């Protein structure tokens, strides 16, 4: 049911876009910018262009400061022309609807914490299409505010700042609606993709690696879908907060290492659906904090330090049919109260049996080990992990639970891993 809406929007958007591109190309004049062309500067071409025209920018280096696009235009780069911001200017400011920006290289935009300069900034516009651009060493990469029905697709965005405060976000969206963020590659920014007050949007097939803070970071962004994205080795993983009705499908979260790094941090999220995601070699796969009514099924948790940490302030979450393999700790919590539901998961630590051969273990599985409780209260005790003493304690706790929450249990553990 939740999946329906973004897809529906996508269809509508596709129809609209095809309609508009047709409309534009049918009447438009083409204006060429370059050394051997009528327009030597982009600024001149933009000034002369009529709504609906196409501006072709040919190969070259253009240092023209801030360019403002205030009418519906298609701006297309031939052979990757370079637009240089000289570390002073916002390069492209889009203040019109129906703009296409394609095939440009934008680099070295200005750095300013006062007005958040970006390589491409979209102000209160609709149907803007940013595709196939290369953005290098910018402060913010692509910045959308108060925009609707925009598409950001197949862009390559890379920054090389060393410190968080010197760096902006790769794709930054603020108070927008019905966006499509598709197939972008984002490296080395502060946050790879940042959403605040963005709704009804789809984030699909993006790659965000080695960003300084988060690969993906969103707040107050309801009813979005995140599909087949890949997040690797970001400073603090992925953190999503204060949001409801989010769908996350087939995303991969890899090697987010550190004390405060999480595959995904869910803070105050509710009514979300996670399926087919893979959490591999993270310090913590998923961290649930104050999150309610989340369904997580058919996900894989492989070789994480903590597969899932579910704080005691979470309620009515369902964790079903997931694979937990080779994690140091499968699931931990910080209290004794458990209001969440675990069922039919595959746990590689499970030692029960299956007499009636229905592939469901006959003995309930308690994923909470005594030692995980000890480590939760006393982190340095981690150093004693895998010592014989600790193994003994764990075994006796498994037989007679006293310290661990007894209702933290999977009553139907699967005997064989799911093929995911």
């Amino acid at each position, binding site marked *: 049911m939740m999946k329906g809406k973004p897809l529906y929007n996508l269809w509508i958007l596709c129809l609209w876009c095809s309609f508009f591109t047709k409309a534009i190309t049918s009447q438009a004049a083409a204006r060429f910018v370059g050394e051997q062309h009528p327009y030597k500067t982009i600024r001149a071409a933009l000034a002369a262009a009529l709504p609906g025209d196409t501006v072709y920018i040919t190969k070259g280096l253009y240092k023209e400061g801030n360019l403002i696009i205030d009418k519906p235009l298609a701006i297309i780069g031939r052979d990757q022309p370079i637009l240089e911001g000289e570390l002073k200017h916002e390069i492209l400011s889009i203040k019109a609807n129906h703009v296409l920006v394609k095939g440009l290289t934008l680099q070295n935009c200005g750095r300013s914490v006062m007005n958040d300069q970006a390589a491409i900034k979209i102000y209160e516009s609709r149907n803007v299409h940013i595709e196939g651009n290369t953005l290098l060493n910018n402060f913010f990469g692509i910045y959308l505010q108060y925009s609707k029905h925009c598409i950001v697709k197949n862009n390559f965005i890379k920054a090389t700042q060393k410190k968080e405060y010197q760096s902006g976000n790769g794709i930054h969206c603020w108070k927008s609606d019905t966006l499509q963020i598709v197939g972008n590659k984002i490296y080395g920014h502060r946050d790879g993709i940042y959403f605040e007050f963005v709704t009804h949007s789809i984030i699909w097939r993006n790659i965000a690696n080695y960003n300084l803070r988060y690969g993906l970071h969103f707040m107050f962004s309801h009813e979005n879908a995140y599909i087949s994205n890949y997040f690797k080795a970001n400073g603090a993983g992925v953190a999503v907060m204060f949001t409801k009705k989010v769908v996350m499908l087939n995303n991969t979260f890899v090697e987010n290492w550190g004390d405060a790094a999480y595959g995904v941090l869910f803070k105050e999220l509710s009514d979300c659906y996670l399926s087919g995601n893979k959490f591999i070699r993270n*310090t913590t796969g998923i961290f649930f904090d104050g999150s309610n009514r989340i369904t997580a099924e058919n996900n894989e948790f492989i070789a994480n330090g903590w597969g899932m940490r579910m704080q005691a302030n979470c309620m009515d979450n369902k964790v079903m049919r997931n694979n937990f393999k080779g994690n*140091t700790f499968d699931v931990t919590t910080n209290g004794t109260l458990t209001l969440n539901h675990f069922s039919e998961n595959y746990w590689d630590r499970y030692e029960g049996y299956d007499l009636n051969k229905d592939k469901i273990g006959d003995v309930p599985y308690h994923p909470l080990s005594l030692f995980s409780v000890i480590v939760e209260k006393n982190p340095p005790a981690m*150093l004693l992990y895998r010592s014989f003493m600790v193994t003994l304690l764990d075994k006796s706790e498994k037989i007679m639970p006293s310290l661990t929450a007894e209702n933290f249990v999977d009553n139907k553990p699967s005997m064989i891993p799911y093929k995911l």
Partner: protein
Amino acid sequence: MIRILKYVAIDILKNKIVIAYTIMLALFSWSAFSLEDNAAKGLLTVLNIVLLTVPLVSVLFATIYVYNSNEFIELLVSHPVKRSMIWKALFIGLSLSLVTAYLIGVGIPLLIFADWGTALIMLAAGMLLSVIFVAIAFLSCIFTRDKAKGIGISILLWLYFALLFDGIVLFLFFQFADYPIEKAVVFLSAWSPIDLCRILILLRLDVSAMMGYTGAIFKNFFGNSLGLVVSFTLLALWFLIPFLWSLRKFKKKDL
């Protein structure tokens, strides 16, 4: 010394226990790797062999062997050889045979099934633990003439390092939970060779978790090359000091 070493080696071979130990280790590790569906679980079984079985067998076998070769030692002392030579030859002979047993028994399956980094660390840890516990056995032998007492001391020392020490550390953790004890813990772990080896292996096996809380202190200390050098130096001290101490005592001992 080479001559004495040869006698000792032949004697140990004749004894057949070391050969049996090799076969046992091989059986354990091969079955561990081939029965479990993933290599990581097999590694855990091997880890327990390294941390528990290897020290126990080393310390017991060495103690009993030294007591049994009392007459052999007395015979050698009557010959014109240096006393320290006899003791050293005995130590090297025992260490070499136990290390070889470990290398053949555990080393081969480890190198085949586990990834190389982990396998090498585990090999080094097992070899060092063998030598360390032979040295500890030598020390407990030299302290008492009574065989039962000597063996008792050896077993108690093994119990202490393998079980009690962790219990004490855990207890300290709870007692000093309110204080920043991370650095103290690193220091403390140097006081048990088994713990030191376990942490070195842990940093390979559970790297994701170790990168978490403990990251800053432990990974920084044990994980970088300096930490490795320090750890292995400490482990070297763990067999050098007991052995040299026993050597000094042996030189002055009234046989």
